[in-house]
């Protein structure tokens, strides 16, 4: 493209993006069209990728297309493999796209569409994409080392230990909160429970097909599984309409929690190749398909956003979760803006597949942009609903009351009109008995998605099918995260225990498998049980805890990245990672302070424990007090650990910049690639 044309094209993109962002940010009082968000996001991503990521690639990372990557040097046909860049991109995106970017923005929509949208766009372009990109490249230059190994090498033993502890903590809290979302989505929902239950025999059938009938034909069997899942969704409505069958598939929250805990243990401890691997493929198939479909649906239908730009709940009194817009909007939305967990993927499988260093920009920065686009879709799905309906679905009974009329009156009193009849009609339209108090984000997202789909495909008649399709889609891949996460955490614990007693580290030794599986499942099962029993719905305390721990891991990742940049004598560019790092430190430390010490019992864990202690005692009071103190202690421990990493990093940066510490990075020495000659 010649220079004049390039200036013209990019000038137009910038002007269009500026106009769209301004419209989203400034328009008040009347609803705006979702397309403004789509245009704002597309332009921001295009500009961020074209200019910011290119600047990082050229000036800071100095990507070298002639340097052989570990995929080439260590190629073994298994973990290390030279792979087409689009294939690596797809692989990386499939691994980072979980339920987080769907649930977080739905919960944060209680502040209005503006805070979530702005954080998703700015957070992704300046923090999340940067983190994923630099960590990926630094791992590529270190033979595909993991984040914990890089933290140990570049910051020291403290860094390595804290990164390890943060990963385990995040996994446990994540699994607890993910399971809680499934419980809240499926409780008292025979249709949803039936559909999810049916995925197990479907997966078994897929397993037999893969193993016996057409070995290795995963795409084929996944397509077949997808059709069967659609049939199960269709069949679910008959189950919900038949009194005897409906009773069989109707569970309350504690029963569902126990079933999921048992499932988690079985998934981790048993050699269940027959069930788990096919379910994983099925989930990936549904995930990629649904995200694409939702994107097309939003653009084709371009619905109006009914949620205001900002709601009265920016003051911290929100019913979905308590806490002010700063810092809570920034920890509620993690995966769509910046997520420490992504650093694990960027330093896991992906660096072992990259063929050329220059491709890490597209994979690292580009895939995170797509993840952020998924979060924008979630904001739209949540905000197309009438706000009264959104709050009726997402508010716990402890805030708005149990009775439909009382809940509707409370929500209408906040300025978001809704009637019990509206809610009953909506519940009927989606095939549920009730939609009140369905906290966790998944049901609200399902209603929003069903509304978008039903307006573009099939009309109101198919609303119930689309709702249950959306619910199944979320529950399916949350359950996949649950069983994959439990096994990953088990491997990590076994790896650590192996240093104490060797047989415990053997992943095939059954006593160790059972003991470590029980340990991990008990840990996240405890948080799940705590959430199920919480009168405020569980999400109020557990999601912020998850957000804090995830963003603290991002803090560790950005400390590692900044350390390496300074050691590479590129300190003048360190602001690229230092500014997001400072932002995350401000957000996570403020949020942690509030969650531990805030005097409002809905925000502060200790204040809530105090309020419970001074209130009327019930059978559950002492347990609730203990849970709140435990949550405060977990938050405090995480903050102390990350403070240690920060202090250690600062000490090192100071020493290097003053010449007191030698700046020595632990990169693999340069080896010239052979791929260029082969291609040439």
């Amino acid at each position, binding site marked *: 493209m010649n220079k004049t044309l390039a200036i013209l094209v990019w000038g137009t993109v910038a002007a269009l993006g500026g106009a769209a962002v301004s419209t989203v940010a400034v328009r008040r009082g009347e609803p705006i069209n979702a397309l403004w968000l789509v245009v704002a996001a597309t332009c921001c991503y295009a500009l961020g990728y074209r200019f910011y990521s290119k600047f990082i690639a050229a000036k800071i990372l100095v990507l070298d297309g002639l340097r052989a990557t570990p995929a080439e040097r260590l190629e073994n046909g298994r973990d290390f493999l030279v792979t087409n860049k689009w*294939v690596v991109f797809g692989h990386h995106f499939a*691994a980072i796209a979980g339920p987080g970017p769907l649930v977080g923005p739905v919960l944060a929509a209680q502040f209005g569409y503006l805070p979530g949208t702005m954080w998703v766009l700015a957070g992704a372009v300046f923090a999340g994409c940067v983190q994923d990109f630099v960590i990926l490249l630094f791992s590529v230059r270190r033979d595909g080392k993991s984040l914990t190994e890089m933290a140990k090498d570049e910051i020291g033993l403290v860094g390595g230990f804290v990164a390890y502890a943060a990963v385990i903590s995040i996994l446990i809290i994540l699994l607890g909160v993910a399971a809680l979302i499934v419980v809240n989505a499926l409780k008292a929902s025979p249709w949803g429970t039936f559909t999810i239950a049916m995925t197990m025999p479907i997966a078994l059938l897929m397993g037999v097909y893969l193993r016996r009938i057409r070995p290795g034909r*995963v795409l084929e069997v*996944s397509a077949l599984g997808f059709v069967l899942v659609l049939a199960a969704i269709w069949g679910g409505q008959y189950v919900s309409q038949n009194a005897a069958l409906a009773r069989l598939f109707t569970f309350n929250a504690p029963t569902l929690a126990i079933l999921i805990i048992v499932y988690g243990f079985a998934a981790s401890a048993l050699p269940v190749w027959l069930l788990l691997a096919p379910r994983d493929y099925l989930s990936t198939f549904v995930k990629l398909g649904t995200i694409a479909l939702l994107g097309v649906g939003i653009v084709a239908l371009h619905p109006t956003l009914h949620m205001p730009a900002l709601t009265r709940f920016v003051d911290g009194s929100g019913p979905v979760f308590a806490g002010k817009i700063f810092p809570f909007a920034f920890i509620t939305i993690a995966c769509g803006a910046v997520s420490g967990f992504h650093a694990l993927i960027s330093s896991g499988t992906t660096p072992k597949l990259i063929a050329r260093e220059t491709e890490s920009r597209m994979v690292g920065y580009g895939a995170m942009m797509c993840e952020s686009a998924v979060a924008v879709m979630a904001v739209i799905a949540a905000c197309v609903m009438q706000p009264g309906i959104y709050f009726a679905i997402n508010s716990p009974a402890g805030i708005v009351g149990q009775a439909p009329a009382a809940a509707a009156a409370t929500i209408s009193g906040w300025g978001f009109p809704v009637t019990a009849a509206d809610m009953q009609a909506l519940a009927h339209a989606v095939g549920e008995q009730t939609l009140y108090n369905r906290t966790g984000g998944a049901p609200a997202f399902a209603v929003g998605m069903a509304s978008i789909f039903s307006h573009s495909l099939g009309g109101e008649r198919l609303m119930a099918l689309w709702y249950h399709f959306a619910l199944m889609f979320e529950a399916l891949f949350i359950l996949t995260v649950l069983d994959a996460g439990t096994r990953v955490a088990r491997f990590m614990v076994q790896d650590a225990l192996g240093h104490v007693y060797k047989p415990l580290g053997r992943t095939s030794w059954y006593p160790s498998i059972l003991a470590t599986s029980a340990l991990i499942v008990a840990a996240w099962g405890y948080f799940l049980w705590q959430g199920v029993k919480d009168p405020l719905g569980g999400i109020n305390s557990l999601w912020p805890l998850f957000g804090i721990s995830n963003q603290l891991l991002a803090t560790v990742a950005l400390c590692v990245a900044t350390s390496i940049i300074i050691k590479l004598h590129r300190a003048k560019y360190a602001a690229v990672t230092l500014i997001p790092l400072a932002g995350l430190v401000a957000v996570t430390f403020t949020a942690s302070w509030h969650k531990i010490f805030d005097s409002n019992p809905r925000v502060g864990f200790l204040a809530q424990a105090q309020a419970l202690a001074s209130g009327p005692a019930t059978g559950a009071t002492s347990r609730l007090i203990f849970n709140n103190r435990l949550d405060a202690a977990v938050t405090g421990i995480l903050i102390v650990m990350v403070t240690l990493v920060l202090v250690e990093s600062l000490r090192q940066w100071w020493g290097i910049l003053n010449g007191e510490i030698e700046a020595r990075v632990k990169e693999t020495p340069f080896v010239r690639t052979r791929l260029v000659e082969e291609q040439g």
Partner: protein
Amino acid sequence: MKQIITSWQILRNVLREIFDEAAYARFLRRRGLASSSKAYAAFRREFEGAKESRPKCC
């Protein structure tokens, strides 16, 4: 037309990689085996450890 074919091939390859079909094909090539239920079982056994320890994001 050529671009459409190339795009389709890329999409197909991405899906084959995500769904481990490509990994199975490489396994067969490496071991010099033909596809069979035994070969697939051996592939799963070899692949399980790596697959299980792979994190999935939130």
